[in-house]
């Protein structure tokens, strides 16, 4: 492969990754449907809960507070997912959450010792009950959105 070809492949991949992340952020917003702005979609959240229980709960805990059975075995403590809005000035950072779950197109494209790039995993194995990775990530994001606690809780 020439340097030019390599460069163009690289750019193409980077562009694809960017499009993917933007697509996820848009999809998270779009799925709100008739909900008031800034609230999670109940149907997406219910479906996301199923995927969450399969893939996330073992580290982040059934309640999302970061206390799953594997939590104590990890070098980096899993995040308390119920405080993401509280820690972000009261606004749930949906796009960033979706991007973090997916993990592809970021510096941790293949996952890190902290958290796997679940987009990669879903691509390889299925098992989320939806045919495309983005839909799975969006549903998980809505579920996590639905379990946010106030800073005062």
């Amino acid at each position: 492969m020439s340097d030019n070809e390599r460069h163009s492949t690289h750019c193409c991949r980077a562009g694809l990754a960017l499009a993917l992340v933007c697509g996820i952020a848009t999809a998270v917003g779009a799925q709100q449907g008739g909900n008031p702005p800034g609230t999670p979609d109940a149907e997406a959240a219910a479906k996301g809960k199923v995927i969450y229980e399969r893939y996330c709960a073992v580290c982040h805990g059934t309640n999302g507070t970061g206390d799953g059975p594997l939590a104590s075995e990890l070098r980096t403590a899993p995040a308390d997912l119920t405080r993401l809005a509280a820690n972000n000035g009261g606004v749930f950072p949906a796009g960033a959450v979706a991007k973090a779950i997916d993990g592809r197109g970021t510096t941790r494209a293949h996952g890190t010792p902290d958290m796997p790039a679940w987009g990669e995993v879903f691509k390889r194995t299925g098992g989320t009950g939806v045919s495309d990775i983005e839909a799975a990530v969006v549903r998980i994001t809505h579920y996590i959105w639905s379990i946010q606690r106030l800073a005062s809780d």
Partner: protein
Amino acid sequence: MPGAAETEATKDLSVRGRAAYLRYCSSCHGNEAHGDGARASGLKVPVPDLTRIAARNGGAYDYDGVVRSIMKGSEGKGHGTEGMPAWGRAFSGTNGMAAMVTAVRDLAHYLRSVQRP
């Protein structure tokens, strides 16, 4: 008990866990998890019957405890290399963290499905 309930989301995981069990665990714990695998008699430490985990705990299957046991093994408990390996490290070393998370999860779901009084 967190994570203990079998739900719609997790009902097929015991099937996946059975495959992982046969691959990684059965040589010591036996095909049916009774602690009678081919290698069990050669070990200095007793190999537990994994179908009695709940029975030994007053009937309650401690999913979280099982996850941690698989993850940690018993090497830290003074059995030297004779104890159960820390499978979490083994799984993550081979196929990364996602493989570790899913394998440990699947195994703990499978073992719940084989509990007997």
